[in-house]
């Protein structure tokens, strides 16, 4: 068994991984998919890791990536100690898909044959084997190639999970994608890749959970592509409630056709580092995109939500509601961009980001960005960062409620207004339990 711990800088590490992968390809080096991979790698390698000088990363310090000693062998994972019943959100009644270090675990995962109209497909060694009919989707969204971590993912991801909901099908059961990362011997970089296709007039609810197990830090570089066909409904809730040595990059791009409806939520409760890039292309009329997010960030932790809603056609609606609580030395970032293109008349686009800061050493950076080229639109944005309302505190304390308890009650209510937007009751209850626990540390 290999047991090398590599200590170059992160960029070099990505290069070594890329080259290692290329060396195994033989005849497939020139495949279309491998060309995509090469382009992605070149793009990343040319510009390297973004620094605080680049606009989209000015609050996001990536220096930690150069401090981690990445292991080179992450395929040999001992799963015997994995007790899935101990994963907090596993009690959620759902069909489960387990990705262990980016690879599907069929033994742990549910049998999906029984779910009508749902195809769960999995491709391994995609450079060699390709992605079948999904070649028309895989990596086709141009935004991918503009993002350094999406490029790393495209360069290195060798497996693909596809969730394909057939046209006209309403999936009543909840689907849970469980990303587990385990490293037995050093820091680990994984590049899970997920493609969700919501067929015409289909409807599905997906919950994603992320767990880092083991004693070593993990960098999970997750890329998701969503295609919502006409009139499709997709609710995608990602729960970022991970261990203290987890680092997560999540890049999600949804392309939406007319009359489609996306509900996306990022519930960031625990983890060392989270960077979410979420974007929708509203490529049709009468589309709805709802983005919800909460984060509770303390210690030296960091949560960053970058969103981009791109209204390309008229008569669509988007709404973003993000709420954050920062305490200790926690840092929260919100950057929400709304683009309304010239053709996108009668667009309604709303954005709200409210934050509570609980200590002088906590930081919130919030920035709305509106680019509007159509003249008949309704857009609004609002961002606030402040401390807990003193009048409310006094009211609660005058009723005999301890200061700390009153604070927690108000904070819970504050974030819960966003949690309440999640349309799965049992999930809301589980999230609430964890939020209450987290607030006890404040």
């Amino acid at each position: 068994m290999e047991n090398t711990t590599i200590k170059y800088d992160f960029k070099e590490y990505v290069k070594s991984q890329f080259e290692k992968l290329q060396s195994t390809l033989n005849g497939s080096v020139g495949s279309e998919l491998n060309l995509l991979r090469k382009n992605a790698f070149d793009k990343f390698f040319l510009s390297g890791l973004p620094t605080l000088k680049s606009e989209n990363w000015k609050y996001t310090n990536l220096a930690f990536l150069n401090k981690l000693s990445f292991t080179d062998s992450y395929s040999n994972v001992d799963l015997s100690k994995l007790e899935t019943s101990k994963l907090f959100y596993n009690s959620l009644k759902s069909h489960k898909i387990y990705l262990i270090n980016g690879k599907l675990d069929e033994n742990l995962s549910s049998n999906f044959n029984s779910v009508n109209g749902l195809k769960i497909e999995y491709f391994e060694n995609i450079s060699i084997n390709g992605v079948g009919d999904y070649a028309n989707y895989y990596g086709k969204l141009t935004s991918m190639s503009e993002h350094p971590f999406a490029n790393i993912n495209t360069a290195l991801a060798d497996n693909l999970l596809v969730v394909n909901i057939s046209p006209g099908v309403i999936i009543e059961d909840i689907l849970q994608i469980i990303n587990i990362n385990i490293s037995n011997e050093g820091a680990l970089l994984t590049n899970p890749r997920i493609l969700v296709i919501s067929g015409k007039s289909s409807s599905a609810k997906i919950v994603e959970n992320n767990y880092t197990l083991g004693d070593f830090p993990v960098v999970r570089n997750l890329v998701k592509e969503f295609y919502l066909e006409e009139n499709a409904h997709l609710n995608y809730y990602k729960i970022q409630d991970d261990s203290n040595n987890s680092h997560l990059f999540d890049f999600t791009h949804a392309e939406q056709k007319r009359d489609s409806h996306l509900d996306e939520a990022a519930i960031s409760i625990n983890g060392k580092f989270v960077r979410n890039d979420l974007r929708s292309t509203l490529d049709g009329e009468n589309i709805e995109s709802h983005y919800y997010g909460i984060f509770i960030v303390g210690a030296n932790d960091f949560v960053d939500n970058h969103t981009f809603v791109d209204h390309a056609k008229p008569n669509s609606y988007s709404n973003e509601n993000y709420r954050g609580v920062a305490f200790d030395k926690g840092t929260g970032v919100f950057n929400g961009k709304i683009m309304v293109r010239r053709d996108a008349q009668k667009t309604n686009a709303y954005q709200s980001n409210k934050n509570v800061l609980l200590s002088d050493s906590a930081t919130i950076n919030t920035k709305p960005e509106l680019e509007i080229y159509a003249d008949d639109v309704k857009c609004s944005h609002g961002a606030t960062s402040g401390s807990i309302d003193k009048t409310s505190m006094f009211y609660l304390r005058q009723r005999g409620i301890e200061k700390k308890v009153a604070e927690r009650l108000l904070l819970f209510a504050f974030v819960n207004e966003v949690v309440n937007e999640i349309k799965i009751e049992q999930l809301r209850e589980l999230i609430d339990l964890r939020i209450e626990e987290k607030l006890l540390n404040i």
Partner: protein
Amino acid sequence: MALLSIENLKANINGTEILHGLNLTVNAGEVHAIMGPNGSGKSTLASVLAGKEDYEVTEGKVEFDGKDLLDMSPEDRAREGLFLAFQYPVEIPGVSNANFIKTSVNEIRKYRGIEPLDAMDFLQLMREKAKLVEIEQSFLSRSVNEGFSGGEKKRNEIFQMAMLEPKLAILDETDSGLDIDALRIVSGGVNKLRNPNNAFVVITHYQRLLNYIVPDFVHVLVDGKIVKTGGKELALKLEEQGYDWVKDHIDEL
């Protein structure tokens, strides 16, 4: 021993002195009305007694049930049995009335070393007290005061008071802006809670309230001091003659 004794209380906000040496003694079983013109310091007195942090006490002493009140945190004052019905009850989105009051009741019980109420007992108690101020069950699951009418907010204050059974309740202009039906409900609630072991300080602008909650004493507060004390007939006189009458007669009083 008096339930509340205030001696020479001086307090300011942002450096401006509002209370200029106030004296007041309240015994168990009594209802005191405090009347006075706008800006005389009525609400400041209520806020200072409840422990609002914006106010600074520079002089004087307040004893509540034998303990130094000014030394206590706002929550400890409440736990010792002091209740303030707010002039402007605060809206708290996302916290249900029921959860709020349950937390409040159990925090106070914890302080007093009593077991928390279980869900069944709590619901039972809540139903019983809700009747007192004629509020519906649905009201309890709504967020605290959010979207409530003025009358609903004031009824909610009295409902909370009923739940907490304080030794001393300060009603800060609870009657202001209420229509006659709401006023009857609110004062009816107060009257049902009156007993020989508790006391009420009713701060009001209008004599009207005192037809419903009949006070034992009426105090006139002018310019941060109590300038006249009398029985309930003093309120009537004030209503007829206005506060100028008191001001003009301060020297003789």
